[in-house]
């Protein structure tokens, strides 16, 4: 957790590669200026995290990312006392750290976190803009530079893990999908270094796998997977093997589906 300390180091210097799908950059910037928290919705691998990195660079604010999991509690976000050499010592959690340093705090897959995290998220997200740190007996007033961004994937979450209305109605929501074919082609070729034609075929293959969503596959190939396959191809791996390893096996274990995905890849190359 020591890496948390230096906020200036956490500002991204180099512009991350990001292709806007629509006007999400302007919307994010406007929401940020108005101190509104932001909710990113979309399937896995469609560019949510990359977008946040880009915005962090664009706004020149440090970025604190927390990958939420089922055991993530409010204390994990706010901070806790640690016992060190007979003394207890307070350690800021990532959220408190972000508030103190006016950073962008990105809670990835927020629905995975424990329900009690809403205790700290709610007062942060409305016009109070405060972070209660009950163990220190403090109420931190949140600086205008701070911004809270959460993401969730409405597609594969079970009904048990839906975002509550009281939480979601505090956010400005940006919906992400897979980019349109030509844009996705550009992203795949830029990110992976394959030529245009290969990128076109990869995207076509991606569309074929997305047709299988709901009838066997939980999700089709994300842009990220296509980029991964492209990277392997750029290194000289044959397209069929690259698609099998980077996409097919990543999507499913079912032998018949694997066979179908394999043939779909073979069909476009």
């Amino acid at each position, binding site marked *: 957790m020591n890496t948390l300390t230096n906020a200036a180091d956490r500002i991204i210097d180099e512009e991350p590669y990001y292709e806007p799908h629509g006007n999400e950059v302007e919307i994010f910037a406007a929401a940020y200026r108005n101190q509104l928290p932001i909710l990113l919705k979309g399937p896995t691998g469609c560019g949510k995290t990359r977008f946040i990195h880009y915005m962090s660079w664009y706004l020149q604010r440090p970025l604190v990312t927390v990958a939420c999991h089922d*055991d993530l*509690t*409010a*204390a994990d976000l706010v901070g806790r*006392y640690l*016992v060190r050499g*007979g003394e207890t010592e307070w350690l800021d959690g990532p959220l408190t750290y972000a508030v103190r340093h006016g950073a962008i705090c990105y809670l990835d897959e927020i629905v995975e976190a424990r329900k*009690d995290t809403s205790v700290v998220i709610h007062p942060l997200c409305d016009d109070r803009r405060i972070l209660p740190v009950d163990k220190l007996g403090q109420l931190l007033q949140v600086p205008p530079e701070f911004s809270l961004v959460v993401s969730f994937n409405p597609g594969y979450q*079970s*009904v*048990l893990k839906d975002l509550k209305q009281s939480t979601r109605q505090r956010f400005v929501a940006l919906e992400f999908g897979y980019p*349109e*074919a*030509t844009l996705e082609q550009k992203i795949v070729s830029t990110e992976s270094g394959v030529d245009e034609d290969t990128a076109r075929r990869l995207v*076509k293959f991606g*569309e*074929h*796998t997305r*047709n*299988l969503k709901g*009838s*066997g596959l939980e999700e089709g190939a994300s842009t990220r997977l296509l980029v991964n396959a492209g990277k392997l191809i750029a290194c000289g791996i044959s397209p069929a093997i690259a698609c099998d390893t980077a996409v097919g096996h990543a999507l499913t274990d079912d032998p*018949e*589906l694997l*066979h*179908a*995905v394999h*043939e*779909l*890849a*073979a*069909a*476009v*190359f």
Partner: protein
Amino acid sequence: MSDGARQNLFNLIRIQKDLEKISGQVLARIPRANEVVAEIAELEREAQDFIYHWTEVIALSNDELAAHFVANAPAAFVWLDQPAVEEWIIKAMDAFDNRGLGFAVEVFDELQAYVAAHGDRQTGCQFDQVAGFLRYLVKGLGGRTLQVASEPHAYTDTEKIFLPQALSVLEGQAANASLYKCLAAFLWAQNRYGTWRYRALEEAIRQLDAAETWPLYQRLESVRLCACLERDLPGLQREMEALAYADDSARAAWDTFRARVPSLLAEDATAQTSLALVAELRGLPLPPPLRFQGEMFPARVREALFRRVPREKAALQRALGAMQNELEMHTPDDEQNRPGAQAPNRFSVSKGEDEQGRSDFHELRYNNERVPMGPELESLLDSILQDLGDLDDDYLDPKALRDAYPADRESKQGPGEDPDGHEGGSRVELYPEWDYQRQRFREAFCALTEQDVPFGDEGFAAATREKYRGLSKSIQRVFEAILSEAQRQKKQAHGDELDLDALIEAHVDRLQGREMSDRLYTHLRKSGRSVAVMFMVDMSGSTKGWVNDAERESLILLCDAVATLGDQYAIYGFSGRTNKRCEIYRIKTFDEPYNGAVKRRIAGMAPKAYTRMGVAIRHLGKLLNAVPARTKLLITLSDGKPEDYGSYRGRYGIEDTRHALLEVKRSGIHPFCITIDKEAQSYLPHMYGPSNFTVVDEVQKLPWKVADIYRRLTT
């Protein structure tokens, strides 16, 4: 008489006796019984035992069939090995189950045909081996979702792709599997690239005659479709090209043919282009068919098209109507009434701004504003455009729906309204059934439909609650106790609070110079309930009277209690008469809240026919498996053992039920049975396992028992 001859005679007598013992009728029905017995005597002892065993099993179904089996069995052992003989028997038995005695006898009597087909199968490829994969492949390729089914001819009717049961055209199984793939892809391409587009089809039917010009048209279309595939799926096209021709002369003939029709290779070629060429090329010698070309049945396509087009048109208009209502709600009134505002609000569909000009990319506009389409609408539009190429204005006019189409009325009719259940209306699902004698499934043996229960007395729920007021309170308390079983765990490595006791202990340890623990936190672990319960209620005729009343009352009390837990649950009744009419009655689905309609359906549950349990378990297990939950329970309320008209009595029914339960157990469901049959001890342990059932002697105890099961299985 020599020793050998005597031995032989003994043998013959023994076999004759054995067969008579198994079934007295069988030998009497065989015309040349003596010869058959002599042939059987020639076989190995193992083969003889095999024949005895199966004769016995088959005779249980039908003596006549058993006789045909015995008559052909010795010859079968000459041509086939034992597993193949077994397959042959099963094929005949399946024919008997599904199509009747005549077809089954045919399978036994036409042994030679079976032997020939069996030989092919060794080198060929079976439809069943590739069907699953092909379904995914076709779905993945996109466009309207096409089913894949088996029929003697390879063709498509634009709803399904039909492929033969087996292919042994090429050498080796892999090559034939590849041919299957190419057939499916080519028939998919006919759908995708507009061979069956409405106008083209009508024109083709008008202009072409079956004998002469259809074959020419089919070849022209093959040229065009192969060119389309080459552009979009070059890898697949390479594979198709490699196995398209029987020999070099065929390849040469196709090359010549292709060279005559360059216009079909162009990107903008359509079925109409092919049609225009027919007149020009009439009389030309045709190249032999491509291997994956399949056949064309325009009449069947037209039939499917005529069914689909009005249905989809109405569905589109309905969807757009709903969308329009929503859009107009968000438009301020003054904007709608603004003078000089452009004429009526309307939808339009335009090709999207895809730089590659792909024809499958569309966007929907409303008053020239782009509106997003959900996946259903998108695939509907896609399917319509696949049929028509473009849309007439009335497709996009929700108001045109008023002159309702028959197809529209049809879709509104609920399955329960169909008086006869199985014909039309509700969807029939086929399930296998386990035959313990054959140690095999009878494939697709049970036809099952889901139906709604008619509403019953509205006051039933309230009356029941009043009647069992005290009991329902205590059940409620038991259930609430389950809920509050959250606990604070001490001495945790991580947690939300410091554990003072642990901290003091650790401090003492440190002062004494001992190693201190780092488990200093308390952690509140709520019992995160993730339970889904399926109640499967016996609605057989035997429940008539107080059993049915008891079941209904228990369900009311149960629903109240389970609702406090917030668990997901569903209630279905089951009954049926024979394997052809298995029925499942929807009382409450998982998605439905516990509301007035559910209460009235519970009140409306009435005794029906018999208890065919296996198929009900398989179906409800499938529904339960679709629900996301950590713990899944299938609770059966029953009054007796499985029983149905026909063979589903005694051991057969019990074994099928047991097998069905094993299947759902394997998929992670806990089955449990609550019964009021006092003799249940004799068969329930065998079906459900020794501890997975309970026998209730008084109805009042029923909800109590369920509370118990909850505690046992879910905490």
